[in-house]
């Protein structure tokens, strides 16, 4: 069971803050749910900067971002 961060509907920068908290806890993989392209790109940029692998699946206007080492 992977760790989940539900950041849907939250405005900048809360999705990134919650994701970073989860990353700092060190349990991978992490699944992040967001519903705007802005949040998706912000989380992608943050994760890539930290050298994490990023996988994105879109379903019905929402994005499931899976972060793994």
């Amino acid at each position, binding site marked *: 069971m992977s760790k989940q961060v539900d950041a849907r509907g*939250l*405005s*900048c*920068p809360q999705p990134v*803050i919650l994701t970073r908290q989860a990353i700092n806890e060190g349990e991978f993989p992490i699944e992040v749910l967001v*519903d*705007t*392209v802005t949040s998706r*790109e912000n989380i992608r*940029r943050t994760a890539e900067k930290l050298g994490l692998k990023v996988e994105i699946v879109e379903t019905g206007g929402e994005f499931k971002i899976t972060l793994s080492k």
Partner: protein
Amino acid sequence: MSERITRFFASRWGILLTGAVIGILAPLLQRAGNPANMGICVACFERDIAGALGLHRAPLVQYIRPEIIGFVLGATVAALLFREFRARAGSAPIIRFLLGVFAMIGALAFLGCPWRALLRLAGGDLNAILGLAGLATGVFIGVQFLKSGYSLGRAYKTGPLVGWIMPALMLGLLLLRLLAPKFSQEGPIFFSEKGPGSLHAPLLISLIVGLVIGFLAQRTRFCTMGAIRDLILMADTHLISGVVALLMVAFITNLVLGQVHFGFFGQPVSHSQHLWNFLGMALAGLAFALAGGCPGRQLFLSGEGDGDAGLFVLGMITGAAFAHNFALAGTPDNVADKIVGGIGPYGMGAVLLGLAFCLIVGFTMRERS
């Protein structure tokens, strides 16, 4: 293809391009007729719109600014083209409205939004340093709240109508600008005959520049408050690189156009009452940070369907009306009589009240699970 364009705009080059384009176009708008060091100012231009509609009756600052209309509609076009238009709302709307009101009161104490603070500095107005320092201080306080769990709660997907209200209002404003009806003999629509409100670039140029910037900024999420916030919060230099590009390019463009004049006293539409320049923008910066975007960003968000951002914009327009009706806004330095301008006692009270309101919001709003 669309995904590749999206990645470009999300890249460092995308944000640099947006900052540089604003940095060139704003001084050119000034050359084309907009007020000095005010090629673009979201706060001032919303204030002018409030005046044109008669929400305040300050005769020098009344005009329906097509740049604002362009910002929203340019963002709408971009969001539709890239399938990002999403009607959403419901994240503490009444708080966002009041944050907009106080953000405007703070910005008008300084006489400008963050964009104009940058443009003023790029034109040699050193008072902008106090304003930008205040802005950074306000955002810094906002970041402390964010770190301790501050949240206005979630927005939810809603009916498309919610997302279309702001673009529709902007189309309505465009109609009023074009038809310029007189609703009663002494009544609106008002267009200033002298002062900053009377200075404006031709309608079509203003509108096109607005649309271009709205489009680019929607794609790149350009945001001056976010730039400072991300730098403080996570040492992320992405957005700030766009802001620096804006400042540098605007400075160079101003040099080329002969629009740079260094100094504190007597700068165009500005005052040198240092403490209140600082505190006014500190209030604005804190309100932007708590609401998640600078005035420009709120316009772009409102264009892509964010009803909460739309309410923040309407709050700013309301705040502008209060600022002038209640004599809260800053008065420019009086060069002829060598009198330093600034805000009066009511303005000072309003800035302090705004800071108190923002602190209460920052301390009390947490996401409920």
